[in-house]
């Protein structure tokens, strides 16, 4: 029988020798060119990192391909980033240019450093999940095709972090991204009453609803949904497969903006609702691509140097953001959940 609880492989076995020698002794870094970092250690040793955009969904051939490259240029060492990019760790400067050449030939994009867009953190969508309101990989591909040049050029006012989650569970840091693309449902789920009584625990289902929209119906051993209160989150479905939330007609995508995670300059911020709904329009979701493009472009045109999306918006005010982007402001933008009150405008200070 297999050993259990051995835990992951020890990272120390995975570190390239240059890292082992300089572990904790890095002195500074610079961005040599988009996608290429140069870290210098206390004793002057150098490590070049080449960051490569990845679709995250890789087959074993793709992994073997990057292993080949790592063997050839990096003594067999590489890593992945927290945003799912690949990083080649080049300790021999003379191998840097050849690696870049080869990546270029193989059409692996190099970039994502400094003031660029990095990879879109995303989720399973129709590829592997049971609750999605949209696909993830397809939208990501379409949006990254559109923003490609901002990955390979560091021409943005600041870092741009886009994330994508295919349902309100928000697997990823969608709730704190410069731009978040979020799959949403828009109709209360359909309750298969008979099935509920057979396969679901009623109290758990009732408790799952964030808005208290679910009432037990003890007589028929099922539940009823108050359609006025339901906000289509799908949490009931997670607890009970007999409550169907997916709806090909009405599911789609929402866009949130202005989140950030780092503590640099300003505290971390949540992403906030910009566009309540865009249709699911596979395979390339043109409305979503266009909407993201527009927001990015308006930010580029108006932000000051170094200003993250949310910092820019907070400086100019949300009212101005809606004006500049041409996005209509609706009742949906006004919070009405638990912590709504602190989001209301309790001052006469605002722009026209």
């Amino acid at each position, binding site marked *: *029988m*297999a050993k*259990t*609880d*051995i835990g*992951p492989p020890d*990272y120390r076995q*995975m*570190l390239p020798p240059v890292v082992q020698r300089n572990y*904790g002794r*890095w002195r*500074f*870094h*610079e961005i040599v060119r988009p996608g290429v970092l140069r*870290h210098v250690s206390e004793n002057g040793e150098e490590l070049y990192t080449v960051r490569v*955009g*990845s679709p995250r*969904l*890789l*087959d074993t*051939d793709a*992994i*073997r391909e990057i292993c*080949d490259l790592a063997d050839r240029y990096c003594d067999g060492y*590489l*890593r*992945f980033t927290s945003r*799912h990019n690949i990083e080649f760790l080049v300790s021999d400067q003379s191998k840097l240019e050849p690696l870049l050449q080869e990546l270029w030939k193989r059409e692996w994009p190099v970039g994502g450093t400094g003031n660029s867009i990095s990879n879109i953190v995303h989720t399973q969508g*129709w*590829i*592997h999940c*049971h*609750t999605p309101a949209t696909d993830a990989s397809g939208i990501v*591909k*379409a949006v*990254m*095709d559109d923003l*490609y040049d901002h*990955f390979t050029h560091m021409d943005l006012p600041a870092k741009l972090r886009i994330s994508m989650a295919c349902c309100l*569970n928000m697997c990823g*840091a969608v*709730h*704190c991204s410069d731009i978040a693309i979020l799959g949403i449902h828009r109709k209360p789920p359909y309750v298969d009453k008979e099935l509920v009584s057979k396969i679901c625990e009623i109290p758990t289902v009732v408790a799952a609803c964030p808005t208290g929209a679910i009432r037990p119906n003890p007589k028929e051993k099922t539940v009823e949904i108050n359609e006025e209160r339901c906000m289509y989150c799908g*949490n009931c479905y997670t*607890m009970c*497969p007999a409550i169907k939330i*997916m709806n*090909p007609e009405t599911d789609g995508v929402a866009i949130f903006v202005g989140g950030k*995670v*780092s*503590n*640099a*300059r300003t505290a*971390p911020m*949540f992403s906030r609702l910009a566009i309540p709904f865009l249709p*699911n329009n*596979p*395979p*390339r979701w043109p409305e979503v691509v266009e909407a993201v493009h527009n927001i990015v472009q308006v930010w580029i045109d108006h932000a000051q*140097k170094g200003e993250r999306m949310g910092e820019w918006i907070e400086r100019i005010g949300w009212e101005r953001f809606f004006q500049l982007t041409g996005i209509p402001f609706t009742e949906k933008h006004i919070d009405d959940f638990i912590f709504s009150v602190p989001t209301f405008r309790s001052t006469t200070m605002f722009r026209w």
Partner: protein
Amino acid sequence: MANSKTPRLDELEKGRWPSFVKIMKRAAVKKPAAGDLLKQLELSYEEKVGHWKHGGIVGVRGYGGGVIGRYSDRPDRFPNVKEFHTFRVNQPSGWFYTSSALRQLCDIWDKYGSGLTNFHGATGDIILLGAPTENLQPCFDELSEHGFDLGGSGSDLRTPSACVGPARCEYACVDTLDLCHTITQEFQNELHRPMWPYKFKIKISGCPNDCVASIARSDLSVIGTWRDSIQVDPQAVAAYADQGLDIQGEICGKCPTRALSWHPERKELEIRREECVRCMHCINKMPKALRPGRERGATLLIGGKATMKESAFLGWVIVPFMKMEPPYTELLDLLRRIFNWWDERAKNRERIGELIYRLGMRAFLHDVGLPPVPQMVARPRANPYYYWRPEEVRSNG
């Protein structure tokens, strides 16, 4: 193209960003499961709806988590993805690999699975995407044999993750990789056997740049910081100025607490230590000249999570500063107290942040034995609804 069985997905082979469709097609050549996945996805693109059934419970012997069960709702049309479960394989700290370790994984996965993977999942695991039920145990056995183990899923500790930290970053104030590895090893049981009210996530960043987004995505976030003054190399500062960096505008002007003054005559940057809130901005902009202080440790924050069901939370400071040195006893002990406190009180599917919201930070701090300090709050309460312990009222009365 006219004959393509996946005309919609084919559109996603176009464009400059690497195409997941090309990858799936290549895998499909070798693996029928990958082929059916492609076709089922095409159907989803046609119908605008997913085709996976609500997850089922599958797994490997001795564990309760680590595998996500998944079944096609059209096994008639896509028999090869009738069962299409994923493994969450625990990544090495910092996502460092040797090519040989990766090749080993590929070999195993070609043998038992679809050949498709995610490097990595959003929590940080290696995701091996799609295997039939019967292959789960043998696949796991072989993974284990080659030194890999599963990560978390379900109501357990989730796979901790960490930024690259001291391995390649000059800003790291704690050894993120070692700490991540230590915690993961320490809580193997909690990671593999779901017995808690809900999931619990831990993420570790070496400094306030928070490159693993720990504050947003982990119930317990560990973020490196320091207590003394930023270290300054005055010559390097002057060099930045000479190279034309607008120190007044870009550095001092954006310091959130105006802790910096630039004296252009002397080319001197003055830092008022007591005003610095360690946001990293000046260091980020002048990495050759500035570095975190020497007295290093971490800030701990609790409660970060996504939106379900009482709103997304960003983590809340509970320990402004803790030294982080092996064997990390103080942290591990605190974690145990936190796990227990939550485990004993939480309702089903109640994240710790929600529990604290419900019972009050006061109760949490008191019960796990953390002293209240002003660093925990952005600002004190505005309402007068606060509790007096009976013994206090007696003594003050």
